[in-house]
């Protein structure tokens, strides 16, 4: 089957190299004369460095140089990319995040010293010979304890562990309080959104290289956004101008947010390569990843939903403590605020909403965006409290949602939490879900389970997310320190082939396959003639990268804009070649024709003319056929859908089995259905992982007790079912040229509440009254809840 354009499930062209072991991941690269670095990391959560003696370690075999904070006295701190202003108008606390610990360690894993040696093993051996004495300080792990009077301070200079106290929308605060006080019914839920470790299967890696001949730095790194790393590291940390710094992110083995951020190790290898005059390579072990990759989620929330007695939503008040960890990671301040508070309306017409978030420093690994990033936290509390309200009011969980959905005739819909939904149809996705999840057949399946002594439950959730981030002028007002457009260059070659340089970055999303489908559809040529280049600041003019389900909606739109320019110029050339009026030129199936005639020229005639301009309108247009475009969206996109999870609970053991999962999504238009469905599958598995298995745990002293796959439960093939996914409900995005919304995060956003709602439906439907169980719903937690209910 030949490859098709938009709408075709083309097989992925990148697969062949991945399937044959020819992928090019960062750790697969070795540079000539390369050295290796091993980081000595803190094994205590909080302490003052009393002694750091590297003299014995320097004598160890193979050691090239050992670095400490003193070597980075002139470097800046690792910056936060967002400034949040608190509800009193004050800026957030933004303490310095040094490359190597300056006198104090603030979490287990905080790097203290770095040994550069001839081999990795020698670097590791020498690190063990460093004499280190740390005076332990009391660690703050629990967020409430961190905010208590007299709590040990993670950053003394901040004077508090409170990073910010944010209210949204602050002007709604009193009205929401009054509405909740006056409401006929209020459903309240206190819950934890559990801390997760992203765990992309490729551990992070970085190689720094310096060419003294022309003062050029190169950083190879596992990044979702190499230009952003170049900007943050070059401008804020090391003082290297963009033209002297190249950042390459080759094949990257998954990201899920964790490879957005600029990490200290990247700055280290870049600076160290110049200092030692040789390339410096770092490859994280998985154990290191657990204590140095930014974690996700970690919110403690109280949500109140005021309703009338028929289940109409009147007001929502959400109060959250959000863990920042020990330092502010790149996106961290924005996650519990602008990617969380703005989503609190969900799919519903609740007229009054107030969100309060207090962000807290603790002696734990920094917390930042993880698949969904703020939106799963908003969706989880909302969809849980809606389910609880339905139970309290005796209303069917599907009906209470329908009763409050924004209806198709209400768009554009202005929420009370700033965002404006352009389009959607939530009843349509609910109808589709009811069909594909076979909701009608559930009672029979439940009876069959009951006959075997098992409790079957069906859990429903709805979600909406804000994707395609973002309008730069809007996020600028909200405190973003960068624009969030995307860039693309389309280079048409003389013989008609095309190279597209995109600022989006693929680390599993399949851009090398889908972006050519878009370009091919615009020209009517074979996608096989189109190559995608990404992940190298020396090739791609600029880019903001891939996160927040933005690649197609923003990066794809930039490609369309550049292609519009290409086609406009190509039509001028074609008009000249055919001695016709430009207005009469039509493009179809790779040929330019003069409307109403049989005259035409091929795409390749035009491209050749552009580069061999013997017969060419040189007085009107330049030779060549290459265009660049930047696309800055005018609004977010709003993918939405309805999910159903079906579980069976063994009431004797608390073991939960996921028997089925169905997802009905509205992603707008879809370019490659196969890839879109794969994205949903993966998101659902991560959501089930969060809800059933995963939790990053710290003990009271701040020791990470889940530091490997032996104690952090990753979802495995046996833990999850096959999924039924549907994306046939389409309301195209109204403000980008492709009508696309983004699909990367949806699965991870909609699935945790569906799972928890299913378990609670099983228990309550089996006569075991349980209001809530905190994630992950491990057998011991479910069993304990059953025992407590029966007591």
């Amino acid at each position, binding site marked *: 089957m030949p490859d098709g354009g938009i709408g075709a499930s083309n*097989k*992925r062209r*990148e*697969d*062949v*190299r*991945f*399937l*044959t*072991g*020819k*992928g090019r*991941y960062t*750790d*697969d690269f*070795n540079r000539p004369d390369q050295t290796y670095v091993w980081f000595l990391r803190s094994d205590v959560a909080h302490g003052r460095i009393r002694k750091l003696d590297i003299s014995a370690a320097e004598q160890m075999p193979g050691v090239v140089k050992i670095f400490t904070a003193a070597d980075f006295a002139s470097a800046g701190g690792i910056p936060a990319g967002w400034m949040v202003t608190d509800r009193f108008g004050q800026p957030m606390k933004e303490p310095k995040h040094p490359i190597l610990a300056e006198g104090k360690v603030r979490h287990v894993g905080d790097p203290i010293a770095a040994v550069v040696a001839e081999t990795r*093993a020698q670097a590791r051996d020498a690190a063990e010979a460093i004499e280190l004495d740390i005076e332990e300080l009391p660690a703050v792990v629990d967020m409430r304890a961190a905010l208590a009077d007299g709590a040990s301070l993670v950053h003394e200079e901040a004077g508090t562990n409170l990073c910010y106290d944010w209210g949204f929308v602050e002007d709604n605060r009193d009205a929401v309080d009054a509405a909740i006080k006056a409401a006929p019914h209020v459903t309240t839920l206190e819950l934890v959104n559990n801390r997760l470790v992203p*765990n*992309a*299967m*490729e*551990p992070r890696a970085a190689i720094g290289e310096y060419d003294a001949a022309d003062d050029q730095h190169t950083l190879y790194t596992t990044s979702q956004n190499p230009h952003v790393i170049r900007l943050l590291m070059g401008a804020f940390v090391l003082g290297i101008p963009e033209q002297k710094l190249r950042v390459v992110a080759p*094949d*990257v*083995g*998954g990201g*899920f947010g964790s490879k957005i951020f600029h990490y200290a190790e990247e700055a280290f290898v870049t600076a160290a390569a110049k200092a030692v005059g040789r390339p410096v390579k770092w*490859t994280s*072990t*998985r*154990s290191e990843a657990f204590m140095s990759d930014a974690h996700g989620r970690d919110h403690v929330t109280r949500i109140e939903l005021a309703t009338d007695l028929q289940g109409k939503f009147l007001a929502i008040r959400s109060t959250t403590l959000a863990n920042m960890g020990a330092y502010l990671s790149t996106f961290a301040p924005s996650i519990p605020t602008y990617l969380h508070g703005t989503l609190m309306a969900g799919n519903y017409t609740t007229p009054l909403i107030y969100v309060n978030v207090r962000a807290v420093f603790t002696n734990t690994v920094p917390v930042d965006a993880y698949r969904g990033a703020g939106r799963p936290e908003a969706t989880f509390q909302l969809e849980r409290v809606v389910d609880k309200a339905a139970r309290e009011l005796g209303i069917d969980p599907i009906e209470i949602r329908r009763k409050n959905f924004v209806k198709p005739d209400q768009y554009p819909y202005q929420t009370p939490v700033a965002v404006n939904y352009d389009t959607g149809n939530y009843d349509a996705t609910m109808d589709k879900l009811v069909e594909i999840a076979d909701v009608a057949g559930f009672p029979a399946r439940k009876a069959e389970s009951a006959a075997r002594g098992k409790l079957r439950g069906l859990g429903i959730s709805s979600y909406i997310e804000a994707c395609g981030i973002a309008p730069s002028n809007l996020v600028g007002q909200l405190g973003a320190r960068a624009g969030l457009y995307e860039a693309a260059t389309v280079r048409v070659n003389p013989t008609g082939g095309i190279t597209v340089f995109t600022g989006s970055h693929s*680390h*599993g*999303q*399949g851009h090398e396959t889908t972006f050519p489908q878009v370009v091919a559809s615009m020209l009517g040529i074979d996608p096989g003639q189109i190559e995608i280049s990404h992940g190298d600041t020396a090739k791609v003019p600029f880019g903001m990268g891939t996160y927040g389900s933005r690649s197609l909606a923003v990066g794809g739109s930039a490609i369309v804009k550049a292609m519009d320019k290409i086609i406009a110029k190509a039509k001028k050339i074609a008009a000249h070649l055919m001695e016709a009026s430009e207005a009469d030129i039509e493009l179809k199936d790779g040929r330019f024709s003069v409307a109403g005639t049989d005259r035409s020229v091929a795409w390749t005639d035009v491209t050749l003319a552009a580069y061999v301009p013997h017969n060419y309108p040189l007085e009107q247009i330049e030779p060549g056929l290459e265009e660049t475009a930047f696309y800055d969206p005018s609004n977010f996109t709003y993918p939405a859908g309805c999910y159903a999870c079906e579980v069976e609970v063994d009431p004797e053991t608390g073991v939960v089995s996921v028997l089925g999962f169905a997802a009905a999504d509205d992603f707008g238009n879809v370019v490659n259905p*196969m*890839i879109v*469905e*794969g*994205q949903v*599958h*993966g*998101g*659902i*598995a*991560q959501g089930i992982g969060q809800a059933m298995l995963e939790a990053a745990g710290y003990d009271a002293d701040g020791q990470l007790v889940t530091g*490997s*796959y*032996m104690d952090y439960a*990753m*979802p*495995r*093939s*046996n833990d*999850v079912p*096959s*999924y039924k996914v549907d994306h046939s409900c389409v309301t195209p995005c109204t403000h980008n040229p492709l009508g696309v919304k983004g699909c990367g995060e949806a*699965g991870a956003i909609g699935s945790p509440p569906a799972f928890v709602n299913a378990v609670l439906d099983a228990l309550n439907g089996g006569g075991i009254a349980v209001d809530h169980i905190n994630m992950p719903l491990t057998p011991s937690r479910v069993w304990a809840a059953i025992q407590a209910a029966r007591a």
Partner: protein
Amino acid sequence: MPQVSMTVNGRKVTGEVEGRTLLVDFLREGLRLTGTHVGCDTAQCGACVVHVDGRSVKACNIFALEADGTEVTTIEGIAKDGALSVVQAAFQTHHGLQCGFCTPGMVMTATSLLAENPDPSEAEIREYLEGNICRCTGYHNIVKAIRAAATELGAARVAAE
């Protein structure tokens, strides 16, 4: 340093290794066969699965010296004459990979499964993949790909009989 010799993808190789050198490091750094990946350090993720004397082995879990004298097949040795194996092709057709990092281990494990059990059920496939973690696909399409490969290989066997 001790010497180690083995046959890798049909080629005889010899190298010097430390006693602590893992097979995966010998393959990746000694032989520059970087298709075999390291995803963890506790022998849990399966990104490093290779075949040693025909059996699936996590190459991070044995020393290079333990593989002395064996026949090793890595992901680079699966496609023959540039043509993807049935399992590899099924992974592409059914979108059984996204970032590709766990993929070599998945293909090696799936190839072993079908050698041992030519017609596995979905449950048997999921059980067999227990030692291979994928963070991208949610396993759905991996399971589908292996089932499809089993069907195709089964049809080929019938045709050959």
